[in-house]
């Protein structure tokens, strides 16, 4: 009995391997309805890049309005004709729509789907040693829900009345009443529909990431032997599973208010001199529900980038990451705290001042795990044998943004200071540096670093350096002056500042012009990256198996891994992924699959317990 059992299980694994080696695929199953996590990752990446271009172009448009308020844009009328006033300026309501769509696109479509979707999909199976995600089918659905949601959102830009224009936070009652602003009509309906699809996509993705990390690790890949990338993706997915459903209920109630006449968010409203019948609702309820998602969402955006840079900084400093466990615990700390700080977005909503101070304290505690991470990055770089690849530069850039943007968080997290700074450009500067730029840099770092694994070719590093320096300096030139504009009292989301005639506001017009210059230049510089990306995909130098001399096991696959990732057996893992520059070792790196028994000369007593 026992013998037959082993035989059947053996033949079963043989069949499985056979299945993985010969996987005849048609064009459609390989490139379109693919269940291969690597192809899905590339689909997410390409769609994310598309959205990043759209989001960046929209921001260039409204930066023109802010920096050059008197400019005549009639020359652009073939492209954006009906967005202009007869004087050739951007229509004020279109301006609101532009900032709304810029925020929505960047936060959700680029930095959530484009970042998590790409790297969680690509790296989780490869770095933990799995053939694919737990459910390839759900993974495919996740992408296609995202694709559908993208199409709906894209269509909404062109509908009658324009896209949603209540800001990316779509606060009611503005967003709930179609008669309030033209963007609260069809555009808002499509926004809600698109976001519902997006939530489904995000949940399906997160479901897969969590399940795969917990259940499909290769032999020996204990939790504390996982690379920090995986830890970051794992916690990100947990945040998604817990917070996106709350956005769904917020959206559901808003849909009911908009389309079925309920009053969840509406009460005592007069519009055009007439009282609405809605009674008993509360607009603050929406803020609570929205920010219960919204705050974890900013960590959904930044954590994957932090994970990616942890990996790259260790690899390119040729040093073990400083404080591996502290890094893991601080990821968990940030994740847990992110659920109890949401009301710091609502300090001026009339909340109880005592409650405000509770949320202030909880918010400031986030500085602790964040500072641990920043310290560990620097300590890893300290006296490292640093190799400045483009990915490494972008990672160091992330650390810079994370620190300089995080510091302003201390001011905004204080309810007392926030009353003054709320909804000014100071807030805009803060989150564009700490969450926007930092996450984007993580995304770029990841693309430069894992491009050889994705496409089997190297990206051009000279273009990478140019791209880095222009973007790094550009981003600071764009966002640093915004702090001053914010302290001077410029409210965000305003169409124009020229009508106040106080003399004070006008004196900042030059600074706004400067910011717009920098923003548009930085946006244009991204085309260097785009060219590099697509050119290298076909013409880049062929990659070697392990171009960065990295320890993680994705580099043990063939240069262009097929469906199933490893042609033979999945490697077994015997050590943690950060054995760089180990004293006594032959090379300055020992990949995770090299058994301890073959590296007797460099083994340490603590290796036994890692």
């Amino acid at each position, binding site marked *: 009995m026992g013998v037959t059992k082993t035989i059947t299980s053996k033949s079963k694994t043989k069949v499985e391997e056979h299945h993985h080696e010969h996987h005849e695929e048609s064009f459609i199953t390989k490139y379109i309805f693919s269940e291969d996590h690597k192809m899905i990752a590339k689909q997410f990446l390409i769609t994310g890049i598309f959205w990043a271009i759209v989001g960046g172009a929209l921001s260039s448009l409204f930066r023109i309005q802010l920096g050059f308020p008197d400019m005549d844009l009639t020359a652009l009328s073939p492209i954006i004709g009906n967005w202009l006033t007869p004087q050739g300026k951007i229509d004020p309501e279109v301006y609101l729509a532009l900032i709304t769509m810029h925020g929505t696109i960047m936060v959700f479509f680029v930095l959530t789907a484009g970042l998590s979707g790409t790297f969680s999909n690509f790296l989780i199976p490869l770095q933990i040693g799995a053939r694919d995600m*737990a459910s390839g089918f759900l993974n495919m659905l996740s992408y296609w829900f995202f694709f559908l949601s993208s199409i709906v959102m894209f269509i909404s830009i062109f509908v009658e009345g324009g896209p949603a224009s209540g800001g990316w936070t779509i606060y009611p009652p503005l967003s709930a009443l179609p008669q309030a602003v033209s963007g609260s009509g069809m555009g808002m309906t499509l926004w809600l529909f698109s976001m519902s699809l997006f939530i489904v996509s995000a949940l399906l993705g997160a*479901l897969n990431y969590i399940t795969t990390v917990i*259940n499909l690790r290769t032999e020996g890949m204990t939790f504390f032997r996982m690379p920090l990338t995986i830890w970051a993706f794992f916690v990100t997915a947990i945040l998604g599973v817990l917070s*996106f459903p*709350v956005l769904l*209920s917020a959206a559901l109630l808003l849909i009911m208010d908009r389309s079925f006449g309920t009053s969840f968010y509406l009460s005592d409203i007069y519009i055009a001199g007439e009282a609405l019948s809605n009674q008993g609702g509360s607009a603050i*309820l929406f803020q609570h529900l929205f920010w*219960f998602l919204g705050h974890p969402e900013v960590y959904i955006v930044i954590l994957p980038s932090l994970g990616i840079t942890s990996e790259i900084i260790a690899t390119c400093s040729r040093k073990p990451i400083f404080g591996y466990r502290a890094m893991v615990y601080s990821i968990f700390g940030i994740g847990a705290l992110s659920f109890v700080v949401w009301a710091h977005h609502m300090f001026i909503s009339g909340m109880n001042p005592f409650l405000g101070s509770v949320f202030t304290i909880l918010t400031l505690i986030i500085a602790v795990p964040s500072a641990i991470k920043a310290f560990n990055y620097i300590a890893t770089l300290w006296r490292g044998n640093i190799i400045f690849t483009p990915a490494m530069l972008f990672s160091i850039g992330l650390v810079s943004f994370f620190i300089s943007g995080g510091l302003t968080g201390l001011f905004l997290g204080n309810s007392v200071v926030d009353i003054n700074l709320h909804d000014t450009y100071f807030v805009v500067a803060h989150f564009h540096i700490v969450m926007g730029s930092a996450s984007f840099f993580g995304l770029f770092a990841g693309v430069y670093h894992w491009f050889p694994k994705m496409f089997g070719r190297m990206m051009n590093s000279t273009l990478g350096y140019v791209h880095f320096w222009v973007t790094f300096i550009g981003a600071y030139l764009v966002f640093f002056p915004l702090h001053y504009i914010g302290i001077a009292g410029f409210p965000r989301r305003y169409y124009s500042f020229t009508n106040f005639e106080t003399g004070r506001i006008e004196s900042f017009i030059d600074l706004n012009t400067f910011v717009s210059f920098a923003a548009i230049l930085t946006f244009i510089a991204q085309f260097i990256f785009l060219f590099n990306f697509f050119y290298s995909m076909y013409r880049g130098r062929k990659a070697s198996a392990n171009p960065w001399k990295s320890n993680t096991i994705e580099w043990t696959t063939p240069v262009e891994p097929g469906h199933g990732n490893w042609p033979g057996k999945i490697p077994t893992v015997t050590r943690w992924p950060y054995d760089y520059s180990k004293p006594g070792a032959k090379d300055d790196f020992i990949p995770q699959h090299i058994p301890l028994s073959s590296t007797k000369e460099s083994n340490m007593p603590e290796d*036994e317990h890692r």
Partner: protein
Amino acid sequence: MSTTQTSKILRMNPRIFMVWIFMISISMIFVSLISAYIVKKGEPGGFNVDLPSMFYYSTALVLLSSIFKQLSYFASKKDNFKSLKLYLLLSLVTGILFLVTQYLGWVQLVGGGVYFVGHPDGSFIYILSGVHAFHLISGLFFILYVYSKSVKLDVHSKNMFFVEMSTTYWHFLAGLWVYLFITLYFYNI
């Protein structure tokens, strides 16, 4: 040494694991809606709703359905196909009757002057029961799927996955309704 080097990692059936995470994310929808409801009830200007008597029958039916579903699980474990199919059908029928009583409950609410459109104290009852009913319908389809599999004799003691998962999901939905019912009851007296 070899034990530390290649220690086996924790594993459970990934699909079962996924259903559990799925239930957690559904719970988050209800956690947020119930919190919103509780806060709303604490504000002045609201009113209490007489819960429709049909909701009491609903509660009984959903619990009964849960018992039938559990029995179908036991039957499948014992490879008793006849009672497996019978209990699956019974849980289906009681599930559908649950939805009918929910609908009749809404009719009673309307009869009592509590409308979906109006003060949120009333609307929330429709939203909570409605979102729950929506998920219950998905559970019905799941049971229907298991039933179609059991007709093909594809559900048995060696292949418990589907019957196990649909049972877990069904118990979850029943428990969720009982929780909603008790909460609504105590916040309306």
